[in-house]
């Protein structure tokens, strides 16, 4: 993944090498409205972009539950940001779709990722359970980041750990999704956690 490869020689007319960077990604997961895009935007070098995936067959059956039987395509929006590490390496941050019915897309987003942030909101703790469960089951390194909105600083990290039933091996941090330094610290924890796990496995 580090090496720059291509099926075709990357040379232009003058024979100069055209560099195609490698990319890595970190997933920012959590319930609807918890601040995922805010977090992505706080550290991204570009305003978070939105791309849309059209779902046809898979969406059809699920849409029936919502009473829109006539609809054959569903659009899922993915918000993401970018941090250029160096000319050869780019880090992407992907926010997961908040709605539970798009779980299958989480798989695609998580595959090949360094790790994940599960962002939770103290006012809606239950919205974080699904995401925690998802990454636990798949063995993907993740940290739980509790987004402390103004006025919701009334819990300690330990209280949050108990309430969320998160194992001691999973880092849990308090953060402010609007604050760049705070979000940087969360990403640093994710990467360090992924590195520690590699060390343990080695």
């Amino acid at each position, binding site marked *: 993944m580090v090496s720059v490869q291509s*099926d075709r020689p990357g040379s232009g007319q003058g024979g100069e090498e055209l*560099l195609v960077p490698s990319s890595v990604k970190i997933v920012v997961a959590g319930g609807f409205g918890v601040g995922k895009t805010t977090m992505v935007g706080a550290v991204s070098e570009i305003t978070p*972009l939105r791309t*849309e995936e059209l779902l046809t067959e898979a969406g059809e059956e699920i849409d029936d539950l919502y009473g829109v039987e006539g609809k054959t395509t569903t659009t899922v929006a993915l918000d*993401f940001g970018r941090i250029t590490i160096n000319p050869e390496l780019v880090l*992407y941050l992907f926010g997961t779709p908040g709605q539970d019915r798009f779980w299958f897309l989480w798989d695609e987003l998580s595959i*090949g990722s*360094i790790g994940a942030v599960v962002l939770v909101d103290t006012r809606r703790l239950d919205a974080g359970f699904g995401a925690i469960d998802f990454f636990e089951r798949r063995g993907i390194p993740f940290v739980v980041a509790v987004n402390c909105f103004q006025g919701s600083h009334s819990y300690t990290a330990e209280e949050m750990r108990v309430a969320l039933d998160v194992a001691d091996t999973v880092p849990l941090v308090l953060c402010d999704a609007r604050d760049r330094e705070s979000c*940087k610290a969360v990403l640093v924890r994710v990467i360090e956690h992924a590195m520690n796990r590699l060390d343990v496995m080695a």
Partner: protein
Amino acid sequence: MSNSSDWWYDEAAGPMVRPYAMVSGRTRPKPAGEDLTLTTQVRALRTTTEQGTLSVEHLEIIKLCRKPLSVAEVAAYLHAPLVVVKVLLSDLIQRGDVITSGPATTVAPVDLNLLQKVLDGVRAI
């Protein structure tokens, strides 16, 4: 990215062209584009081949990718669904107009050196 003032309609009006019309109804990329993922990096070659058969969207992608961009970024800037962009990119890869980073690994990065670079990079922003 197209300048929004170039258009007489606004985003709320929805797309003027149905997404799949951009790719003549094709819903799957050509084999050359099968391995494209959200983060695959795409870069246009400086010398493009004959442009006669390329659509406006193809040319827009070539323009966007003068600097390397991910598939997801191309889709966002083009305001087109990912699947449509993958089809368009597969055309360009096959023609040799763009090159891409190697196939994305389906396993998490296990290279400590790589992770260290990412860590240093994030700390430095």
